[in-house]
Structures are given as C-alpha cells and as structure tokens.
C-alpha cells in the first residue's frame, strides 16, 4: 500500500511538512516494498487557491491509499474522503519517523478536518 507523507524535502530523512495542500513535496512510500519516490508539489505551493484539493488529486494520482500530514482542512479532507484515502495527522519530526509510527499503529486516523477553511 502506498502512503503519501507531506515533506519539506525529497528524502526520508527530511522533516515532515505540517501543511498538506502547500507542502513542498510528498513522499510516496510503498509499505510492501519499502521503496519510495518524491512528488513535487510546487504548483500547489504557489496556487492562489484550491491547493488542498489539488494536492489531494495529486496523491490520488500517485495511487496513495493513505496520507500522513500535520494538518488538513475541510475541502482537502472531503476530497481525500471521496477518494477513499485515509488521513493520519502526526507530530513526528521526519518522514521516516512518521512512517515507523504508522507501521507500529501509533497514528490515529482522522475522522474530520482539524483546520477550518481559509482563502
């Protein structure tokens, strides 16, 4: 299964990006093979609006079935939910630590957005 982790950089050692829609990158991590690739989020980072739902579309296209991020707003959350993509909010420092926490079942699945809409 592929998990998308919002990241400030392109490697597992990089810190998590707490923002979902405006994350610098996503690390698409395959839990079956332990392989990963980085997905650039530049377009959405600088979008005037709609970054959250566009990021949701991007991770969906990357075949992710779960997202690990710091925060998630209502529009992004509903987009991910429509795509059947689970959202896990984490406070870990690095992508690697977040994936470990996920694998050990220490991350709880979010049932709703934890941020209100903004423009």
């Amino acid at each position, binding site marked *: 299964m592929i998990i998308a982790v919002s990241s400030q950089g392109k490697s597992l050692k990089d810190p998590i990006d707490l923002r979902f829609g405006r994350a610098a990158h996503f690390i698409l991590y395959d839990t079956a093979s332990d392989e990963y690739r980085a997905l650039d989020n530049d377009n959405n980072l600088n*979008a*005037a*609006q*709609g*970054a959250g*739902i*566009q990021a*949701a*579309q991007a991770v*969906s*296209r990357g075949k992710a079935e779960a997202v690990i991020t710091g925060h998630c707003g209502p*529009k992004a959350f509903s*987009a991910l939910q*429509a*795509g*059947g993509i689970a959202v896990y909010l984490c406070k870990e420092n690095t992508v690697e630590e977040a994936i470990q926490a996920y694998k050990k079942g220490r991350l709880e699945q979010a049932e709703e957005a934890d941020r209100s*809409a903004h*423009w």
Partner: protein
Amino acid sequence: MRLAIISGKGGTGKTTVAVNLALYLHREGEEVCLADCDVEEPNAHFFLDAAWSRENRQTVAVPEIDNAKCLGESCLQCVNECRFNSLIWMAERVMVFPELCHACGLCSFLCPVQAVDETTRDIGLVRRGKGLGVDICSGLLRIGEAMASPLIRRVLKSTPGQGIVIADAPPGTSCPVMETLRDVDYVILVGEPTPFGLHDFKIAVELVRKLGLALGTVINRDQMGDDQLEKYIRHERLPLLARLPYSRQAAAACSRAEPLLEAMPEFKEIYRNMWENLQKEMQAGGK
C-alpha cells in the same frame, strides 16, 4: 462621472468622505448616487439613515457535471484549465468545489460533450434606496460566501448610467478594491498620517498607478500623527484635494452615524474645496 474612494488601511475614513461628498453634491443640486461596495460590512446607509426600496437576491453560476456524458480521465479539460483550481479528478469522476468557483464559465465552454451544466449559488443582496435625499446602492454578501468581487460588480451595475456615482470601496488593495475601480474616472485616496496609514497608502498609490487611473488624495485626521504622509504626497507630486481635521467632535458624530455636514457645518467648506480641487484636477487630466 464615476468616482471611487479607497484607502488602503481600513478605518481611514473612506465612508466618511464618500457619504459627506455625496451629501454635499446632492445639496448642490447634482444628481448623485452613492455605491457602497464594502459588501462584507456595508455601513454607508447608516450615515444616510437610508430606507431600501428594492432588494434583489444575487446568484452566480456554478458548474454541475453530468457524469453520464463526461468523457472522464481521457479528457479532463475542465479540471486542467480551471484558473481557480476548483475542479479535481477524484474517484473516477470530476469533483466540483463550488466555493472556489469564480463563475467564469470556462469549464462549460471547453467541455467537448456538453457535460457541464450550470446550477447557481446565492452570493447575497443588492439593495437600492434613498437617505437624506441621496440615492444609495449597496451590497450585502451572504454570510459564508468568500468572494466579494462578483457582488461588487452587481452593485456597480445597479448604479445609474448618468450623473455622479461615488463608489465607497472596501479596505485594502486586493481583488474587491480592483473590482470597485473598474471603469472609474477618478480615484480619491484617503490617507491617515500614521506609519501604518502611510504603509498602506503607498501600496494603494502603486495599485492606482498600475491601473493607469487619475488619482487625488485626502488627508483625514490631519495633525493626528506625523508629517510623513504629507511628505510622501509632496514627493510623489500627488494632488492633495483636502485635509480633514483631527477632531474629537467629528469622531463622536461618526460614532453616532451622523454625517459631518449635519453635525459640524464647518465641514461644508472643506467638501466644497475638495470638489473644486477635484474638478480642476480632472480638467487638467492629471494622473
């Protein structure tokens, strides 16, 4: 003639200037309409004690996708071309986020199979009325609606095509202000002589210059802070149409929603001069 009153910083005195200038011109026998474009918190009508004669609910078009007709992932023109990022491809269908839609109609225009239907979204009210003899148009944005510009366009559309229209702009220098400045002949920029006031004043000057519009300035609460605003106005060679004194009595009248022309007759002379200076500037074709 179409005028717009802007300020950059909020609370500088746009509405005070707009209301009193409209009232002054009406009393001079001019045909004048005040357009309150601050649709997120309209308040000009309080100063005129206006009564509404017409209220019209306003809607904008929002796309609705007919999934039976949609070509799906092989097309995605609507998703890819939307300038406002309001459509995505998710779970094998196009998902619409109406709150992000600016109702431009591009998705419907582009769709090769006419799968984009239009439904509507309520954006608020346009109201017309009269107060102290002055005609007023005003917008009231629906609570929860994020985009003010489409409603501002409707407010301005409801103003008469002749006479003098005075548009009271929202604060700031972003899209709603630019919408208010569409098709105006002259911009009055109201400034406040404080560091914060000057900061936003400069941004507003840049905006008006970029739009190539004729600009005049008014200093409100003159003598309240420092002389940096006036120095900037001189340095940039901007016309100074009027100075409104810093006055506790004026502040008290405003807090009671009384036009200064009513509460303090000495303001009439200031507005007379403001109007004369503005006309001179317009005749000189000044920018």
